[in-house]
């Protein structure tokens, strides 16, 4: 039966809201399929505003993977801003997809991609506006299956009560496998109802309701066990091998509305084994799997031709680590030198080689700013986090940058790292002054700048720091204030150094949502009922609201906000995500945690791409292996270049 568009009801509301174009759809690259031509229908949601969600790679990839299949339909939906939310409630307009403005509740699956935990309240808005019961337990056969994926889903326990299923790891093959299961189940007449479907998914998808969590009197988890037959004790992540066989996105969605990233992005490799101990992405996406230079070249050429974008981003967790990054940069720069297509390498490490790459990619553009992330101010602290950058490395890198015409260098740091002292944070200021001094000398001018940008450290699941105590917000704030004072006090440098930071309170809520268990769902629901929306946006985020909600929702439990955040865990404690397997060996993680805080100084872990395997567990337990070049291939500009600038 065809499903009616809600657009006739939505359109009269649009003149009264901000940026109405974001709700209209019709983008180049979007796909509208006949409803009845598909037997499995997905609504894909990035639970944030359209301007943030549209460029998301995960959604764009899955959208294409699904829509390429016959009999499968995928449409997108994003969180509407509070102005439209209020009007939709007033006029009974349900959550809709952008392609055909179909009501989300009519789909078979509603999939959320969680890049960050602060989107959890937006998920509740989407569910509620869609008319789907917020709790999984209250949904019936007629409601869409509510599935989550993305990095934050590696500990979905705080939202487990709201989700029917959770996919760990890479989604490309998983969404197709889920689609097949749903198709079969529907074809057979939906045997066993909703639970029947979930049981079929349970071997490769985490079904929270099939696991019971019990607690000790002190609030710690006693155990997490399956509550029915045929459900595995632990659920493993999915790892996509051979990225060349999955060259998505091919038909990028090109927005009419303005979004945060206006470019064609190609992931040049997935995974990272640098071993930074704070980095969840680097731990849960192992091993490194490269896309070959030739596939990258073809994707860039096709992506530009299909989209009309004039900027290309070469994405990964540490783009300069690609085994053929130099060839990629030089060849792409050759291909696009005359075509007004800009190339960028968004994620780079502290290394003079990176400046050479950036020089290459910006051949005919302006050299405005370069960004590096030393993360820790002192060498001792950088050893603790296994970010092996010496002060000499950093000075050499920025000297190269300023000398080759870059005027501004941005440096990222974290505050509140394990073992951190006041002096470690003060060291950031000393480093910034040395950077300016070296830069003035290298550039031969005084108008160069350095911006210091600091975020509060939040311990994340599946990392060696998953047991660490999060630093108290008062301590973080005091250290950041002291650093700001020191930067301003030095008149020889104050005007050349910019200073940006996030206060400690924001990080505490992220910490609660990152390492929380199922009891935290009550906090999320309470905060949402109190009006929490768009918590990732500082103008919408309220720490006080979350604090009140935590007090209220956890009143009957022996745990509180501090218990979840600033408390160190020990080896024997059952962590809420211990039954979810990212491939990492728990004992290896514990040893790495112990090495990082060893009194005699932190031990170093090398990158397994260049040194022997140290048995982190990712490859051996998942049956995967490192896939890196070099391939020895080069890009032929005449073959690749889309015809722009004359035909």
């Amino acid at each position, binding site marked *: 039966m065809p499903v009616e568009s809600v657009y006739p009801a939505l359109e*009269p509301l*649009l*003149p*009264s809201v901000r*940026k*109405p*174009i974001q*709700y*209209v759809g*019709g*983008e*180049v690259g979007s796909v509208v399929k006949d409803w009845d031509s598909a037997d499995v229908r997905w609504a894909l949601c990035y639970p944030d505003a359209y301007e943030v969600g549209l460029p998301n790679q995960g959604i764009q990839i899955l959208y294409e993977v699904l829509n390429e299949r016959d009999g499968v339909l995928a449409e997108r939906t994003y969180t509407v801003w509070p102005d439209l939310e209020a009007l939709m409630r007033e006029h009974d307009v349900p959550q809709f997809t952008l392609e055909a403005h179909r009501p989300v509740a009519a789909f078979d699956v509603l999939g959320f991609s969680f890049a960050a935990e602060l989107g959890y309240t937006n998920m509740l808005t989407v569910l509620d506006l869609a008319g789907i019961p917020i709790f999984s337990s209250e949904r019936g056969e007629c409601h869409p299956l509510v599935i989550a994926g993305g990095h934050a889903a590696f500990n979905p326990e705080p939202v487990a009560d709201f989700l029917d299923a959770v996919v760990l790891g890479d989604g490309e093959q998983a969404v197709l496998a889920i689609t097949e299961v749903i198709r079969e189940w529907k074809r057979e007449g939906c045997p066993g109802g909703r639970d029947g479907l979930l049981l079929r998914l349970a071997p490769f998808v985490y079904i929270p309701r099939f696991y019971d969590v019990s607690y000790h009197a002190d609030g710690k988890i006693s155990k997490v066990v399956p509550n029915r037959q045929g459900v595995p004790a632990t659920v493993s992540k999915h790892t996509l091998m051979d990225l060349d066989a999955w060259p998505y996105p091919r038909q990028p969605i*090109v927005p*009419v*509305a*303005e979004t945060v990233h*206006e470019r064609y992005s190609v992931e040049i490799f997935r995974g990272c084994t640098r071993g930074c101990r704070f980095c969840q992405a680097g731990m849960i996406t192992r091993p490194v799997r490269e896309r070959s230079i030739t596939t990258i070249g073809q994707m860039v050429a096709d992506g*530009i*031709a*299909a*989209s*009309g*974008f*004039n900027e290309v981003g070469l994405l990964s967790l540490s783009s300069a680590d690609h085994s053929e990054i130099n060839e990629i940069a030089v060849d792409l720069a050759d291909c696009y030198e005359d075509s*007004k297509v800009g190339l960028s390498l968004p994620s780079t490490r502290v290394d003079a080689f990176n400046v050479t790459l950036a020089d290459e990619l910006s051949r005919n*553009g*302006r050299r405005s700013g370069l960004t590096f992330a030393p993360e820790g101010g002192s060498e001792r602290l950088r050893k603790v986090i296994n970010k092996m950058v010496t002060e000499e490395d950093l000075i050499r890198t920025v000297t190269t940058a300023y000398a080759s015409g870059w005027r501004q260098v941005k440096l990222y740091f974290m505050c509140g790292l394990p073992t951190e002292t006041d002096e470690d944070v003060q060291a950031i200021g000393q480093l910034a002054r040395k950077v300016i001094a070296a830069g003035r000398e290298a550039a031969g001018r005084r108008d160069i700048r350095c911006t210091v940008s600091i975020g509060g450290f939040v311990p994340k699941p599946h990392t060696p720091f998953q047991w660490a105590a999060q630093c108290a917000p008062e301590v973080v704030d005091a250290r950041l204030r002291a650093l700001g004072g020191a930067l301003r006090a030095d008149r020889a440098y104050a005007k050349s150094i910019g200073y940006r930071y996030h206060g400690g309170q924001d990080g505490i809520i992220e910490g609660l949502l990152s390492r929380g268990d199922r009891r935290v769902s009550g906090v999320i629901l309470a905060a949402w009922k109190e009006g929490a929306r768009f918590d990732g946006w500082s103008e919408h985020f309220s720490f006080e609201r979350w604090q009140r909600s935590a007090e209220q929702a956890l009143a009957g439990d022996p745990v509180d906000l501090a218990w979840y955040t600033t408390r160190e865990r020990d080896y024997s404690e059952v962590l809420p995500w211990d039954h979810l397997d990212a491939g990492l060996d728990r004992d290896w993680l514990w040893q790495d945690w112990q090495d990082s805080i060893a009194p005699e100084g932190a031990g170093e872990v090398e990158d397994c791409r260049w040194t022997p395997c140290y048995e982190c567990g990712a490859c051996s337990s998942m049956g995967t292996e490192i896939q890196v070049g070099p391939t020895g291939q080069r890009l032929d500009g005449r073959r690749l270049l*889309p*015809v*722009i*600038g*004359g*035909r």
Partner: protein
Amino acid sequence: MRFASHRDVARAFERGVRRAGLPIAYSAGFTPHPKISYAGGAPTGVASEAEYLSLALTVRQAETQVCLRLNAALPDGIDVIDVTEAGGDGSRPAGSGSASAGGFGHLEASGWRMVLPGVAPEVARRAVAGFLARTEAPVERLTDKGVRRLDARAAVVEMTVLDETAEPGSEDCAILRMVVLHTAPAVRPEDIVTALREQDGIAPSSPPMITRLAQGQRAQLTGQALLAGKGAS
């Protein structure tokens, strides 16, 4: 495209030009921009069937080819109706030109169609008569820079209520047609709605649906010329 801002449309058009593979000319400088200039874009929230722009190419192309390639590449909702080669100074060559088009300098007025939901045609007729009888209709519009005061009456050359109604069977829906001069500061259709609401007693039940039907010289738009125009969606 009714809900797209002028900047949104410009960005979508530039990407369409690149997808079409047209040899677009770029400005000089650190951040080169494609040489495309837009003439008085319709405001956000208003549909349009008559926008004009000029673009500079580095290689001469057949007009029909440019038109075909752009239409193949542009998103739904942006259609190129006609392409005409301009003179070397960007103006139209002498001796050519259809009735509705002109060099940008000649786009002195717009014809608009305005559907007023929930307003009976006879109520609209009384309001229009009242509006036209005025010598001025001062209105205020809230902009990013504060409150702007305008005379909505001064820009209106012609305003009539059509005999047709929007959708048979639905609620009352008066349809207005008007010709409005391009003044500085510009009087937008929404300013005229404000005047009709505040001073002439109409009360639309939801925001009016407004469509720009044509742009050109005042004489080309007034009288019966536009009444024959097709209805807007």
